[in-house]
Every structure is written in structure tokens, then in C-alpha cells.
């Protein structure tokens, strides 16, 4: 058995430039530059609370969109339950700390684990379906969760929402100011993106992409598609729960309007405009989304209309998303230099 692979004259792997198939050398530089920019951002904006607040919102959006990207971007499962996981994470964490006097760290873990378990159950039901059917089944779950947030009054306080949620606290240290929250959030986002990056460029990530591109062929090469789709659901649930908990304890107030249908559409736009499966593109889209909606406020009633036009232009210019646009620009730049 072992001799058969020796017989054809092996092409030496170093005969090819490693960059040919990895093309990943600029990833590290790009990530480092983005991190530096994010670290100096508070100073650049003069430590204004409003800007920092928007910054934290953008980072939370990255976290949330990143989880969604694993599911609909990488593994191609058009599920619509992401905001439900986000909401469950937020409510679980807020209620545990505020009403249950549980230490934040424990609440955070619960806010990650519970949506993950829910995602597992949904994946079990959803894995047999694809396309619009999958979207409908998962959207049904979103609707159930949305109704529960509103009508389970004893627990969620309905439309009045949950107020006076304690800030994020680890031991004796409370993240009270936007600046503290910003750096905490930045650290968590950086680690999350690193984890996602490692998953994407690995055997697991390839299995996700294989399922997205051709589920039949994925099965044929020996990928347990049920298992990997379940894993993608659970990962997205975990990231959504994490984002939910951080959101609840940063804003310190949640109500059902945060976890509605529009939120889901926001996320879909971020992932599509960023580029399905593209970690950098989706992160940039999340930042642009949050900041452009803030900075277009001077347009008042015209804001959403202008935003819509920008969206159409963006999608026409680069249908595969901002990620691939950046890649093309980088390649052009690289060609000109060499």
C-alpha cells in the first residue's frame, strides 16, 4: 500500500512558491495594521465618549456578523436564527447578573453555552433542509424567540425592557467607561477573529466551504456534512451569544426592539456586502455599516435612502463583496510593484 504513492515521480513541493497556493502572507500584515488602527482609534478621535460608543457598537457588530459569516458565508447555510441567539445571550446574561446576582464571568459562559445548545437543536432539525426551506425553518425559530422576548413578561419585562443591567465586571474590576469597554471589546473581537481565521484556513474550514460549494461532492470526499453543518450552527450560536452578553452589559439596557427582524436584515447586508466567507471583508462592512449609519444622520429623512443607494453601488461594483474587492486591489498593487 505504501509503495503506490512513491512510484510517480514526486513534484517537489518547494518547486512552487508557497505563496502560490496560500496567498496568505499579506493576511498577517493586514491584521497587524488593522489592530494598530483599532488601538490608536480612541486617541485619534480625542477620547470622545460618543465616538468610543460608536466604536464599541461597531466591534459588537463585527462579533455578531462574524458568527453569522461562519454559518451563511463559509458553510452556505442560509439560516435566519442568528438574532435569536444574540437575544438569548443578551437576556440570559442580563437576567443572571441583574436578578440572579451571578458573577459576570459565569453569566457570560451561560450566555455562550445556552445559544450554542439551542443552535445544536436547530441544526438537528435544519440539516435536512437547504435554501428557502432552511431559511423558513430557522426564521420560525427567530419569530418564536422574538415573541418570547416580548410576551414572556415575567422574565423579560416585555417592551419595557430590562434596565439597570450591571456593567461588565471581572472580579473587582468593572468596565464602566466607554474607553474601558472599547479595549475589552477590541481584545475579544481580536481573539474571536483569530479563532475564526484559524478555523477558516484548516481542514474544518475547508469542509465548511466544500458544503457551501457542493454538498453532494462534499459527502463524496468523505465529509460528514451533518456534523459540519451542526458545528457551523453551534459556532455561530456561540459567537452570537457572546455578542449578546457584551451588548447587554455595555448598553446596560435591552428590550425586544434590539432583537427584531431589522437586526437580521442588517446582519445579512453586512455579510453579503462584506463578502460571504471573507473575515476581513465582513469586519470592514460591519464597521462601515455602523459608522455610515451614524454619519449619515445629517441627511435626516434621506438617510436610509442614501444608504440604500450606496448599498446598490457597492453590490454592483463588487458582487462578491468588499473582501474580494480588496483582494483585487491588493493584487493590482502587487503587480505594479513587481
Amino acid at each position: 500500500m505504501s509503495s503506490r504513492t512513491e512510484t510517480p515521480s514526486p513534484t517537489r513541493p518547494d518547486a512552487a512558491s508557497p505563496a502560490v497556493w496560500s496567498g496568505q502572507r499579506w493576511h498577517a500584515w493586514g491584521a497587524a495594521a488593522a489592530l494598530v488602527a483599532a488601538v490608536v482609534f480612541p486617541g485619534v478621535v480625542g477620547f470622545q465618549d460618543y465616538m468610543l460608543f460608536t466604536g464599541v457598537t461597531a466591534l459588537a457588530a463585527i462579533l455578531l456578523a462574524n458568527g453569522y459569516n461562519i454559518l451563511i458565508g463559509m458553510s452556505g447555510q442560509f439560516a435566519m436564527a442568528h438574532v435569536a441567539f444574540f437575544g438569548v445571550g443578551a437576556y440570559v446574561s442580563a437576567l443572571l447578573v441583574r436578578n440572579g446576582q451571578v458573577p459576570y464571568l459565569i453569566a457570560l459562559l451561560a450566555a455562550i453555552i445556552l445559544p450554542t445548545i439551542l443552535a445544536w437543536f436547530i441544526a438537528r432539525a435544519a440539516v435536512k433542509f437547504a435554501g428557502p426551506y432552511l431559511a423558513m425553518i430557522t426564521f420560525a425559530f427567530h419569530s418564536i424567540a422574538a415573541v418570547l422576548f416580548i410576551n414572556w413578561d415575567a422574565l423579560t419585562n416585555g417592551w419595557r425592557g430590562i434596565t439597570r443591567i450591571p456593567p461588565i465586571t471581572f472580579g473587582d474590576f468593572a468596565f464602566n467607561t466607554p474607553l474601558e469597554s472599547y479595549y475589552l471589546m477590541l481584545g475579544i473581537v481580536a481573539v474571536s477573529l483569530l479563532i475564526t481565521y484559524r478555523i477558516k484556513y484548516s481542514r474544518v474550514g475547508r469542509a465548511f466551504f466544500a458544503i457551501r460549494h457542493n454538498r453532494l461532492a462534499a459527502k463524496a470526499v468523505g465529509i460528514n456534512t451533518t456534523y459540519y453543518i451542526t458545528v457551523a450552527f453551534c459556532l455561530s450560536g456561540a459567537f452570537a451569544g457572546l455578542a449578546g452578553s457584551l451588548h447587554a452589559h455595555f448598553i446596560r439596557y435591552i428590550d425586544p426592539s434590539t432583537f427584531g427582524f431589522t437586526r437580521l436584515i442588517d446582519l445579512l447586508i453586512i455579510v453579503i456586502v462584506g463578502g460571504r466567507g471573507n473575515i476581513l471583508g465582513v469586519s470592514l462592512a460591519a464597521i462601515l455599516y455602523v459608522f455610515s449609519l451614524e454619519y449619515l444622520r445629517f441627511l435626516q429623512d434621506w438617510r436610509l435612502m442614501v444608504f440604500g443607494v450606496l448599498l446598490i453601488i457597492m453590490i454592483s461594483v463588487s458582487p462578491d463583496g468588499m473582501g474580494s474587492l480588496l483582494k483585487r486591489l491588493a493584487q493590482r498593487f502587487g503587480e505594479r510593484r513587481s
Partner: protein
Amino acid sequence: MTEPLLEVTGLTKRFGGLTAVDDVSLALGAGEIVSLIGPNGSGKTTFFHCVTGFYRPDAGSVRLRNGGEAQELVGRPAHVIRAMGVARTFQTREIFGEMSLMDCMLLGRHTRTSTGLLGTVFMPRRSRREDDLAREHAAKIFSIFPGRFGPERWAEPAESLSFANRCRLEIAIGLMSDPKLLMLDEPAAGMNPNERAELMETLRQIRDLGYTLLVVEHNMRVVLGISDRLIVLDRGRKIADGDPEEVFKDPVVTTAYLGDDYDVA
């Protein structure tokens, strides 16, 4: 043939009132190329689906010899059957669209690698090492197809390949999992005569490397050129099995293909 590599007995698959594969029994010896032929709708592809776990047969057994022991394949899911040593291609050239050739090849190695979710997050070095070994392996497999998959093409998306090259890539992906049996569904479809000749050479080379091949093919030049043995299906039943030249002369076979008023002489 004392110990067959693959032994199929009484395999049957029904779709409502239609029996697509009807009580088919056959055996494949290690290291031979066997062609499975038959008119359109005779159940060749259904047979493939049953053996590789894409369809669950209504009756019958498929046993693959793994080392000394034969293991039952019926009832196991497709991904397990691939891991057990049966790789296949599709008539419709199923590849992974936008993924690069090298990534497609690494996917072919999926069942021979083990990095899981925790491994990739906490042991990235080990994960990368495993991928590097798989890439070296892919380079060896690619060298079976000289001039087709040079290193300069490894980053290109699979969908940029011509139809013929997609077929070659599918075969290469199949070889990545060190299969005991490689099942090809119409590998020569869409190829010109030169490409067909090259394909025949490649398939013979693959056999000489020690693999066993079961090939569904419509092109009779290819069938005669590569087959050590020929099996003919007609309306789901096996009607002939043996030396290619003799099978072609068998009146049962000519009748199945051409009708019973055709004069062979």
C-alpha cells in the same frame, strides 16, 4: 480470483414500480480495471450510488475487503464508505466551484487527516503541518497528470477548468484518500480523441500503481482500451461479465444495445 476486493451480491434498488438495479451480483479483484457498460437507463449510475452510500439499496450486500476481513458497506453513509476506501466521481463532474485546485485536493485528503475544531484553534502548528503533508501528497498525485496541474495552476479556482480537466481533477481528488477502489462515472465524457487516449494511459497508470478501478463508460474505444474485464447491465440486470472481446460478441449484449433484429455478422 480467490479473494475479491469488492463483492456485490443480490444488489437491488427500486424506485416505485421501477427496479433500477435488479439482483446484481459481481466481484472485483484487486488491481484490475473493470468497465460497467449498458444502454442508457440500465442502472449503472444507480449501481454506483448504491455502492457508495448515496442510495440505500432495497436488498443485497456490498462487501469490501479491508486487509483480511470483508466489511459490509450497505447501510453506511457515503462519507464513511469513502473513509473505508471507496472513492468515486460523478457523471456531472461535481467539483467545488470557487475553491482552488489545491484546496480541492486537500478536501480529497479529508478522510486521511484528523485536525478537528479544537485542533485547528489550539494547535495551529500541527494543523498546518498536516496540511503541508497533504499538499506534498497532492503534488505527487498531480504528477500523474503531466502538464495538466502544474504548480502555477494550484491557486486557480476549480470552476476555471475545462470539462476534461474537471474530470482529471475529480480522479486526482479521488486518489487523495488512498482508495482501495476508485469508481469513475463516465470519465471520458466531453473529451476529444486525443484527450481520451491520454485518459486511457492515465487510467492504466493508476491501475499499475495498485489501485482497482470500476469505470462506467459509453465510449467503446475507451472501454476496449482499458478494461481487463467487462460487465454489462441491461434494465437493471447483469447480462454479461467477462473478457471484453468475448462480451462484445455475446448475442445477448448486442441485442441489448442494438435490438434483436440486428445481424452481428
